[in-house]
C-alpha cells in the first residue's frame, strides 16, 4: 500500500539529484569560460560543429516555413480583404514565435543530439577519463567551448530562420499571390516593433540556446557509457530539449507579451 508512495518519493529524490548534478555541471562549465578566452581556437571549432553544420537545415526550414505561412495566411486574410497585412502576419509569427521555437527544435535535433552522442562516446571510450588523468579538466576543456558555441549560435540561427522566412513569405505573397509590395513591407514595418518583437524573439532564442545546449551536454556527460546508454541519452536530449523549449516558450510569451 505504501509502495506507490515510496516509488514517488524515490522518483522525487532522483529528480532532485539530477537537477543538482545538472547545476553543478553548469557551474563547472561556466567556470571554464575564463580558460576559453585564452584558447579561442577551441570555440571556433565548436562554432563550426554546432552552428555552421546546423545552418543548412535551419535556412531551408526557415524559407519553407515562411512560404507556407504566406500561402496559408493569404487565404484567410483575403476573406476579410486584409491581405495587405500579410507581411505583418508572416513577420510577427516568425520573429515572435516560429523563429526562436522552430530553430531551437531543429537545433536540438541536429546539434543537441550530436553533442550528446559525441560527449557520451567520449565518456564510453574513456577519453574523458583519459583527459582527467592528463590533469585536464574535461568539463572546462570539452564541455565549456561546446556550451558557449551553442549559446552564441542559437540566436544567430533563429535570426537567420526568421529573416529567410520573411524573404520566403515575401516571394510567395508578393511574387505569387500579388500582394502589394509596398503594403507588405510598410505594414510589416509599421506593426513589428524592434523592442517588443525583435528583441523579445532574440531573448527567447538566447534562453533556448542556453537550455538546449545544457541539456545536451548534461545527457552526454552522464550517459551510461555503453552503446545503449548513449543512444538513450541522445533520445532523451531531443525529447527533453523539445519539451523544455515549448514549455519555456509559453512562460516567456506570457511574461513578455502578456500585458
Amino acid at each position, binding site marked *: 500500500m505504501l509502495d506507490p508512495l515510496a516509488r514517488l518519493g524515490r522518483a522525487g529524490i532522483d529528480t532532485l539529484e539530477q537537477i543538482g548534478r545538472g547545476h553543478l555541471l553548469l557551474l563547472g562549465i561556466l567556470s571554464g569560460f575564463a580558460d576559453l578566452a585564452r584558447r579561442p*581556437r577551441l570555440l*571556433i*571549432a565548436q*562554432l*563550426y560543429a554546432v*552552428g*555552421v553544420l546546423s*545552418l543548412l537545415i535551419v535556412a531551408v526550414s526557415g524559407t519553407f516555413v515562411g512560404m507556407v505561412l504566406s500561402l496559408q495566411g493569404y487565404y484567410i486574410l483575403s476573406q*476579410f*480583404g*486584409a491581405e*495587405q*497585412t500579410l507581411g505583418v502576419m508572416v*513577420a510577427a509569427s516568425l*520573429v515572435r514565435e516560429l523563429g526562436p521555437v522552430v530553430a531551437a527544435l531543429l537545433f536540438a535535433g541536429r546539434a543537441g543530439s550530436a553533442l550528446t552522442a559525441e560527449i557520451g562516446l567520449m565518456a564510453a571510450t574513456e577519453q574523458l577519463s583519459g583527459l582527467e588523468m592528463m590533469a585536464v579538466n574535461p568539463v572546462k576543456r570539452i564541455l565549456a567551448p561546446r556550451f558557449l558555441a551553442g549559446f552564441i*549560435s542559437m*540566436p*544567430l*540561427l533563429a*535570426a*537567420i530562420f*526568421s*529573416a*529567410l522566412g*520573411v524573404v520566403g513569405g515575401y516571394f510567395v505573397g508578393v511574387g505569387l499571390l500579388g500582394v*502589394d509590395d*509596398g*503594403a507588405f*513591407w*510598410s*505594414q*510589416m*514595418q*509599421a506593426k*513589428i*516593433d*524592434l523592442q517588443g*518583437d*525583435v528583441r523579445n*524573439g*532574440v531573448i527567447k532564442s538566447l534562453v533556448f540556446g542556453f537550455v538546449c545546449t545544457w541539456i545536451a551536454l548534461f545527457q552526454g556527460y552522464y550517459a551510461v557509457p555503453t552503446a545503449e546508454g548513449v543512444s538513450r541519452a541522445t533520445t532523451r536530449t531531443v525529447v527533453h530539449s523539445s519539451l523544455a523549449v515549448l514549455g519555456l516558450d509559453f512562460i516567456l510569451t506570457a511574461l513578455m507579451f502578456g500585458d
Partner: protein
Amino acid sequence: MRNSRHIEILVGAFMAAGLVALFFLAMQVSNLGSTSTGDGYRVTARFDNIGSLKVRSPVTMAGVRVGRVSAIDYDSTTYEAVVSLHIEGRFDQIPEDSFAKIFTAGLLGEQYIGLDPGGSESYLTEGGELALTQSALVLEEIIGQFLFSKAQEGVKDE
C-alpha cells in the same frame, strides 16, 4: 588541426550571416528602418483628424502608391495633425491644388492617404503643402451622429 583555416572562414561566414539576419530583422522588418527614404520630395498636409493613420502608411493616387507618410506631428496652435508625405521622385507632376483624403482599405483595413488631382498647372515640390484635405472617417463618430439624428427625429415625431 587540418583545414583549420577552412573552418575559420566558414565560422566567420556563419557569424556574418547571423548578424546580417539580425540587422535585416531590425532595419527591414521592424520599424527602425522607417527613416530610410531614398530620392523623392516631401510635402505636408493638415488634417483635423487622422484616425489611425500611421507613419509609413501608403499615399496613393488613383489607387497607385506614389509615396508614404514619413512623419506625423501635432500643431498645438491650430489643434491640427500635420502629416508629412514622402512622394517618390518619379511622381513629380502632382497638381498643387490636389485634394488629400484619408481612406480606409476595406471595412476594417488600414488607413491610407488618397490624392485626388486638382486642375492647377503648377506642381507640388519639396516643402509644398496640400491645402485641401478631408479628415478620416471615424466609425464611432459616424455611428454617434447617426444615433443622435435618430434620437432627434424621435423628439420631433412626438
